[in-house]
């Protein structure tokens, strides 16, 4: 049974609330996006949704050992299994609660589906005027075989507060999984947040990850997206600046091999004056991997003095690798500074020979240069353990044993 068929029959079930039923029907009318949809032109869901998934199966418990196996080792861990909160630690100035007010009215079909199929949703809130010193690790485990799972969470950063997060999605078994991950981040006045997304799941995992960030005045929000593992990854990262002097930072590193596909869609909506955005996405593509980058920057009519920067640099390390890169700037204000650059290239042969002449093998030289290429984005990550993980995953992808720390 295809996923759509499954959703159809589920929507007729008696246990589904009328509210969610309406949303499901709205989804079913629209369906999943296809490549005819401009925003999904290069990332076809066709094969993925033709397969069979379970949409309301119950997963199993996971053990502490399994958690620590996949953890990056931070003390404060929030753990979800199949979208449901199972570990709610006590962290000073942080409250985690089940929410009910997070209703639908989502704009696109994927989000509608997320709302109507999600078992639950959670809010992670940082209180006002508090600085959470230690990074908080959020782990999402999937245990259901062929599960189509919804995560639905809100992160709220209070006024004048600061926090850092590391989020990781992990399958417990190697079976197919399809995750529809939906997060809203609210940044209050003068707040500061760094949110690191580690996408290094097993080889048959599929992911649609939508993150909407809403920023108030003087807030700074940095989202770092590290894409290494998984069969199909679609990221929708949207920023909405509602208040002056807000800053949005995006760093992305995608390193893909085999037939992996990663599609990074970003959108910054500059709705207020005197704001900034910085975007640095690096892509490395091996084998038959395919990458998509679409970076949209919108500067609204009265949003003067905007300083927006966007860079998307790509390395194609194989004849068969593909990247489709599209900067998309819509500027309606007249006193702004917007710059963007997009490059697609290979490694520098001279540099490779230079390193080989110093005794570094060609595979290692390739890896070092690739690391150097990606490091501009990696260096913007302020959590050492995450930056180190990125370096190690990169070395692993390039199949070299290399220590690049000193």
């Amino acid at each position, binding site marked *: 049974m295809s996923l759509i068929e499954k959703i159809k029959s589920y929507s007729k079930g008696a246990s589904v609330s009328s509210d969610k039923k309406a949303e499901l029907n709205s989804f079913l009318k629209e369906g999943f996006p296809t490549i005819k949809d401009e925003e999904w032109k290069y990332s076809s869901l066709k094969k993925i949704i033709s397969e069979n998934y379970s949409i309301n199966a119950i997963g199993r418990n996971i053990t502490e050992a399994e958690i620590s196996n996949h953890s990056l080792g931070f003390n404060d861990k929030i753990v979800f299994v199949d979208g449901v909160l199972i570990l709610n630690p006590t962290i000073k100035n942080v409250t985690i609660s089940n929410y009910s007010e997070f209703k639908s009215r989502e704009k696109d079909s994927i989000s509608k589906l997320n709302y109507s199929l999600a078992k639950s949703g959670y809010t992670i809130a940082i209180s006002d005027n508090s600085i959470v010193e230690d990074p908080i690790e959020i782990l999402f485990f999937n245990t259901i075989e062929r599960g189509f799972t919804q995560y639905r969470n809100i992160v709220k950063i209070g006024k004048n507060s600061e926090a850092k997060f590391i989020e990781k999605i992990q399958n417990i078994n190697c079976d197919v999984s399809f995750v529809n991950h939906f997060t809203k981040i609210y940044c209050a006045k003068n707040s500061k947040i760094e949110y690191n997304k580690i996408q290094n799941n097993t080889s048959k995992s599929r992911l649609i990850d939508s993150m909407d960030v809403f920023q108030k005045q003087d807030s700074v929000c940095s989202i770092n997206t590290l894409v290494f593992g998984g069969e199909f990854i679609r990221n929708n990262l949207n920023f909405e600046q509602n208040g002056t002097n807000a800053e949005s930072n995006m760093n992305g590193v995608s390193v893909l091999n085999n037939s992996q596909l990663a599609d990074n869609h970003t959108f910054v909506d500059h709705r207020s004056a005197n704001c900034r955005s910085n975007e640095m996405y690096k892509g490395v593509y091996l084998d038959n991997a395919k990458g998509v980058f679409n970076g949209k920057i919108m500067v609204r009519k009265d949003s003067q003095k905007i300083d927006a920067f966007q860079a998307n640099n790509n390395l194609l390390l194989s004849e068969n690798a593909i990247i489709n890169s599209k900067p998309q700037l819509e500027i309606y204000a007249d006193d702004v500074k917007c710059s963007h650059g997009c490059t697609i290239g290979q490694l*520098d*042969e*001279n*540099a490779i*020979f*230079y*390193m*080989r*002449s*110093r*005794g*570094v*093998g*060609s595979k*290692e030289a390739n890896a*070092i*240069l690739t*690391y*150097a*290429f*990606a*490091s*501009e984005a990696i260096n913007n990550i302020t959590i050492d353990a995450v930056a180190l993980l990125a370096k190690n995953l990169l070395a692993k992808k390039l199949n070299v044993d*290399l*220590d*690049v*720390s*000193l």
Partner: protein
Amino acid sequence: MLKIKDLKAGTENAKILEGVNLEVNAGEIHAIMGPNGSGKSTLSAVIAGNEYFEVESGTLEFDDINLLDLDPEERAHKGIFLSFQYPVEIPGISVSNFIKTSINEGRKARGLDPIPATELLKMMQGKMDLLRMKKGYLSRNMNEGFSGGEKKRNEIFQMAMLEPKLSILDETDSGLDIDALRVVANGVNKLRTKDNATIVITHYQRLLDYIVPDFVHVLYDGRIIRSGGKELAKELEKKGYDWLKKAACK
């Protein structure tokens, strides 16, 4: 140590070396001089194993091993070092990290464990003192934003760290002011032992006042047309190359 016999090499489109013969023994310093385009840099690139150049015929041996069978990194592991005329900028990799990697890759090839960090730092400090380099330099990205002189000094620093048997200095003097030249030359002289050898490639006699060669060779049109002692360099400084070119034509 190094034996080159009737070496012919070039690119796909051009013949550059048209039969070079050269023998370098341990403890010796050889200077290779010659006008622009005579093949000096090609010769050094071929010895180091740059695959951009194809060797058509002839032999290239190092300690009785056929170098032509070896990749550039394997030649480096055997003890060959090329100081580049135009060192490459590698953003994102610090000098210390780069050197650590090249030392450890060399050790790996010889079946040794990585060098302990403290030993490495001590060694770096010693060599930096020798070349009068400032400490902050280690954390800078490899050659990125370096002045011409800094790049060349960085090359000699790597040479000092890697302790090669045969060093080829390709136009190391270009871009150096006289003070830097003295420091670099002093470094090269201090690193000299009876077991290693140096080939100095240069346009100018000036460098040879500081690094005094045992032999001077003139490369012209892909061939060594004259060899002699250090006085040959002085003669070239005075008379230029034309008299040799004419002699070579006959």
